[in-house]
């Protein structure tokens, strides 16, 4: 519903000749919101059946891991990323350049803008941030980092 813009002396004078009705200007600025939300939601979990074909990911160990449901989007970040710049979505290799678009495709039918990252313990922070950058580009607001309990494979 359009609102009549109140006639302040210097507010948007060009847009209100006569009894002109304009669109409301109040919209949430999403960019800072995304910035804040992207601060990690770290979720500890017990390593589910993890090491399927192809990708070998040595999850970091955390003593307070919790179960998470299986109907989630997982992005695997194996140690081999350092050589080939490839991560894995559903066990399918995806080069870093395409990650944002592929995640966007996966997210089309989902309402939660959330992925779980199964990163190898060897991955360093720089590499992690490269992946986060692409996830952010795809509109992901929360990233959960997956870990395993001590002594678990």
């Amino acid at each position, binding site marked *: *519903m*359009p609102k*009549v813009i109140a006639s302040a002396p210097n507010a948007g004078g060009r*847009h209100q000749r006569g009894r002109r*009705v304009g*669109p409301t200007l109040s919209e949430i600025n999403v960019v800072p919101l995304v910035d804040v939300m992207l601060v990690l939601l770290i979720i500890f979990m017990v390593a589910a059946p993890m090491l399927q074909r192809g990708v070998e990911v040595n999850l970091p160990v955390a003593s307070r891991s919790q179960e998470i449901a299986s109907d989630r989007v997982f992005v695997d970040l194996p140690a081999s990323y350092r050589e080939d710049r490839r991560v894995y979505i559903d066990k399918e*290799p*995806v*080069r870093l*350049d*395409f990650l*944002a*678009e*592929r995640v966007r*495709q996966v997210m*089309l*039918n989902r309402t939660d803008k959330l992925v779980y990252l199964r990163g190898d313990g060897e991955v360093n922070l720089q590499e992690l941030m490269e992946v986060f950058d692409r996830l952010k580009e795809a509109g992901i607001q929360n990233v959960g980092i997956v870990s395993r309990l001590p002594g678990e494979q």
Partner: protein
Amino acid sequence: MTMRQVVWALAAAAGSVLGAQEPAPQQPSEVAVVISGDPGTPPRYAVPDFISLTPDAAGLAKTVGQVLWDDLAFEREFYLIPRDTYATIPVARSPDQVPFAAWRELGSDAVVFGTIARTGNDVRVEVRLFNIRTRQSVFSKEYTGSANNPRLYAHTIADEIHQQQRALRGVARTKIAFSSDRNRERMVGTVENRDVKEIYIADYDGANARRITTSRQLNLTPVWSPDARAIAYTSYRRGYPDLFVALIYQGVQEEPTRGGTQNWLPMFSPDGTRIVFTSSRDGNPELYLMNRDGTGLRRLTTHPAIDTSPTWSPTGTQIAFTSDRAGTPQIYIVGADGLNLRRLTTAESYADRPTWSPAPFNEIAFAARTGPGYDIKVYDLATGATRQITFGEGSNESPTYAPNGRHLAFTSTRTGRSQIFTLGRDGRGLRQVTRDGNNNTPAWSN
């Protein structure tokens, strides 16, 4: 249809070999021609730039790729992978170089490969559609013609891909007629200095806009004949509203009502032989029917209130119109024989400009007052339910359906001036068609 004929005509004039050459199927009985996506998701298409085989065709190649992407995205049958993600994929110079693995990694189910070669003002466009999984070509065509309008090749390819992959009649080659003051001319022969409106036609996406009338008067409410070769409209060139029919490809003007009375808002019957219109020749505005040449005039409504804005049902047996006989303007339906009149809208405070959807959807779109402006609503004739598809962004008026019934064009003031937009019949997929001047009363061609 018409534009297709134009391509053929151009090609024939150039004396070149024309038409589509289907390659022999590699596995005649087993090849799946339709490309499907992952279960529950639409197939994902990648449309990179076409390859320019001659140095002077580079601009054409880029245009065709971009327009084809836009055309395929318009029907929302496929997910079109954004073109800025293709940058790191190697460019294929020939069909056997298409990097299927890279396209697959980008999530693509189908990729278009096309080439353009230019000789003088003639171009030769070849296009293939590859199934990424099977690496087979499922669509392969070749077009020759003029280099003047490269967008037409993309429109033709898009319509043929929609037809083959989805059995869907695309609208990429259709046109929209509208009334516009974009030339900023002033009215001649009057003391006052007033704006004029002329009739324009443009491609469905707003490109290739062309002026149809040059009378420097008010020219309003164009409608297309079913064969898309003529436009009927209301003009004030005689000082009062009267009907004219412009045969746009012949440059001929017809005057079926021949002056003397006030007539406006014409609409062709679905078979193109008759015109229904509003006239005040007998005192107050009523609906009249006539043959296209002005003979066989017959009065359709008889009521002291105003009856106006008629639209035909797709079968030609009924006419919906606006009448204020109940106190406020509402939508009514009457048989083309003048019988069986009934009121349609009851919950609106003000309803005007009905337009009847083509098959397969049996519904009527109209403009309804919602607060300070108007919004587009759709009345479903089977259930009697009304749904709203625009929501108070500016004033939204004058809906017209695309020939496949899946989209509407309408006038909206949401960006400030009055512009034409297209929108899916589900209220999604808004696109702005015009940007120059004020543009009103769109009509979508067949």
